[in-house]
């Protein structure tokens, strides 16, 4: 499984007569892009806007953010299971428009406060990697008579299609940089004697009901899913798509494609510090039996299929995922696999005693992401791009926004710089 990223840096995005890449400028044929999105009969119309870093602009609610990437024809397909039949992702060359993003807004009326906002300027933007990207912000409008789940499916799929379409401009162009991932896996030679390290990552929590047609893993909404072994390249290359439900802290397709933990494990693998043996994708349980099934199988695969010496674990969402992740780590520790776990901020009273939902002496290496006491008063902005009129009103004025509501600030995939410290 050889994955190659042909990286084309993008420093400017503008509308043009043809979609083409001119050095680091991407010109986009708006009509053609619109035609591709509206080629899906479920989409009635789509609002398309270009946004630059530093621009006095705010957008929301964000459903997903996707890095434009397109697979060459002889490679594995783009977003298999969503844009094509399921097939194993992660093989061959992907053209990457580095520095660009497709940001999909949710056009359905909001229920409660807006929990995912893109800030392109102002105090909150300084802490989000998304604010330094060139965005195509799109709001697809589904046919009014469409069921809610079908509208969400159409909206998210439109974003993925747009991302692939844009990146196809890189075909035939010489990339600024080509990155080839070294082969990794439980049986790859060359790193003998180094600690064998695995990643065990949750991709969904069954405390929420997966939508019909939600497409998280190869197009599956995760119902009926058991923990599964995955090659790291599958995460990076389209096997995974963000859930419609924002996890605590956020998990967007962009950071599956640029997975901070997987890329860090690759970096240390290449540096000869560890042997990256693979990953397990899992979900947190609905009830105790579900939890036992999920945690036992995830630990079993890590220990016996990957033969790992160490594992890093992440959760998806709040309390139930927190407990399931800790239980998986406990099971691993008890079979001799050393672990570290990453938790989101659960302490609302800012007390250490409320921070953790487990007390396992062996689960003693904990990375604690912050968020609950970071917020900003953000100024009014000149330009608001909103999924719906209510959101437009909320977003246009000065207001207080918490870290977890700004996409890219708190993040459950490992991208955040925000932690909590004990004092």
């Amino acid at each position, binding site marked *: 499984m050889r994955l190659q990223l042909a990286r084309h840096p993008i420093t400017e995005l503008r509308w043009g007569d043809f979609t083409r890449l001119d050095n680091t400028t991407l010109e986009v044929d708006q009509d053609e892009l619109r035609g591709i999105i509206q080629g899906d009969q479920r989409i009635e119309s789509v609002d398309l806007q270009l946004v630059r870093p530093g621009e006095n602009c705010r957008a929301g609610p964000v459903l997903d953010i996707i890095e434009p990437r397109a697979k060459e024809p002889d490679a594995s397909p783009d977003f298999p299971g969503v844009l094509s039949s399921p097939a194993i992702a992660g093989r061959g060359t992907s053209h990457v428009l580095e520095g660009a993003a497709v940001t999909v807004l949710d056009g359905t009326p909001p229920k409660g406060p807006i929990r995912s906002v893109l800030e392109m300027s102002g105090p909150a933007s300084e802490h989000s990697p998304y604010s330094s990207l060139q965005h195509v912000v799109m709001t697809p409008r589904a046919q009014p008579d469409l069921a809610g789940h079908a509208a969400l499916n159409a909206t998210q799929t439109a974003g993925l299609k747009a991302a692939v379409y844009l990146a196809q401009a890189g075909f035939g162009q010489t990339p600024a940089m080509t990155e080839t991932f070294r082969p990794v896996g439980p049986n790859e030679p060359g790193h003998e004697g180094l600690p064998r390290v695995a990643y065990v990552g949750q991709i969904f929590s069954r405390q929420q009901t997966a939508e019909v047609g939600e497409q998280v893993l190869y197009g599956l909404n995760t119902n009926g899913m058991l923990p599964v072994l995955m090659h790291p390249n599958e995460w990076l290359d389209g096997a995974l798509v963000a859930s419609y439900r924002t996890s605590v802290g956020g998990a967007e397709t962009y950071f599956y494609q640029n997975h901070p933990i997987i890329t860090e494990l690759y970096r240390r693998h290449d540096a000869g*510090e*560890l042997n990256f043996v693979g990953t397990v994708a899992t979900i947190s349980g609905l009830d105790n039996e579900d939890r036992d099934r999920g945690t036992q199988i995830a630990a079993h695969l890590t220990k016996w299929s990957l033969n790992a010496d160490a594992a890093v674990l992440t959760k998806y969402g*709040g309390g139930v995922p927190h407990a399931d992740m800790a239980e998986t780590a406990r099971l691993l520790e008890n079979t001799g696999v050393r672990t570290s776990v990453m938790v989101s901020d*659960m302490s609302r009273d800012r007390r250490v005693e409320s*921070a953790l939902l487990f007390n396992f002496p062996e689960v003693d290496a904990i990375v604690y992401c912050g968020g609950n*006491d970071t917020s900003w008063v953000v100024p009014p902005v000149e330009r608001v791009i909103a999924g719906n009129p209510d959101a437009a009103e909320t977003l246009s004025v000065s207001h207080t926004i918490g870290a977890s509501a700004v996409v890219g600030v708190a993040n459950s995939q490992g991208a955040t710089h925000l932690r909590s410290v004990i004092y």
Partner: protein
Amino acid sequence: MRVVHYINQFFGGIGGEEAAGSHLEERSGAVGPGRLLEQLLGEGSQIVTTLICGDNFAVEQQDDLTAAVLDKVRDANADLFVAGPCFEAGRYGMASGALCVAVHSELGIPAVTAMHEENPGVDLYREPLYIVDSGANASAMREVLSKMVNLGQKLSADERIGSPIEEGYITRGLIRDAFVDQTSAERLVGMVMDKVNGNPFESEMVSTSFEPIPVPAAVQDMSKAKVMIITDGGLVPTGNPDKIEGMAATRWGSYSIEGKDSLDGDDYEISHGGYDPRHVQEDPDRLVPLDALREMEKEGAIGELHNEFISTSGLANPLSNTRRMGKEMVEKVKAEGVDAVILTST
């Protein structure tokens, strides 16, 4: 900076244990360790008043002492209140902690003290205060006072206080956010590498172990017991009359089940954001097992089912909240003569 310094009878030069009953005395200027404290505070700062009190008097007459000290600190127009250092002296530590909390909360004047980790004052006041870790030995006086001065000056200037290790205070058990250079992914992988390679590593969070809750005596005769159901599954009457929050709930409610043999999903909703509530919505008896308990009541297996159940939502709730709600519920349960409670969760 105008400083008021509180010390006990021993450091005040009045006497040892035999003088522990001495009342509060006020001296102008620095006394005992206050002389070194004043020197370390530097130019432009002075100890305007020293307050000295016997250890026994201080803990036995704590309310009177606190009121008197508040008056004197206010009259002195102080910018900073310093108590101790107390080292291992337990009564001195408890008095100093109480006075620092009162001065800070009542007068808004920053306050700092110092104690040994084992001092009982630490357990009582570590959370609201910055308590410098003095160690057990009074020979470290200069070092301890330097740390107190540093903290006191920062608190007065409203400067950011660093970590317990940087500043030398005893961990308060609180957390705050900070932006750091490394991503969480880099820290996560770095930590597991240190662990697997046998190198030291520092967890960013520590587990709290809680005191075991003693098992209460068994109910002698269930056939005579009055039984009540309490749930944290968030079941509330339609409309959620008590506005119980679906996350980090601060409220709870009690709802009548009088005359009912089972619960109908049409009459209830679920205010809880942390589980898939479909099965409970379909049949609330799955969470609040009224149907089964009514049968047991008829069979005589239990004496009586209490005519209300209590409900709240148990999701992402800080312990400070749940402790309070638990106490409130216990009061109600006791007042209504309930003998046994069945707790159901999700």
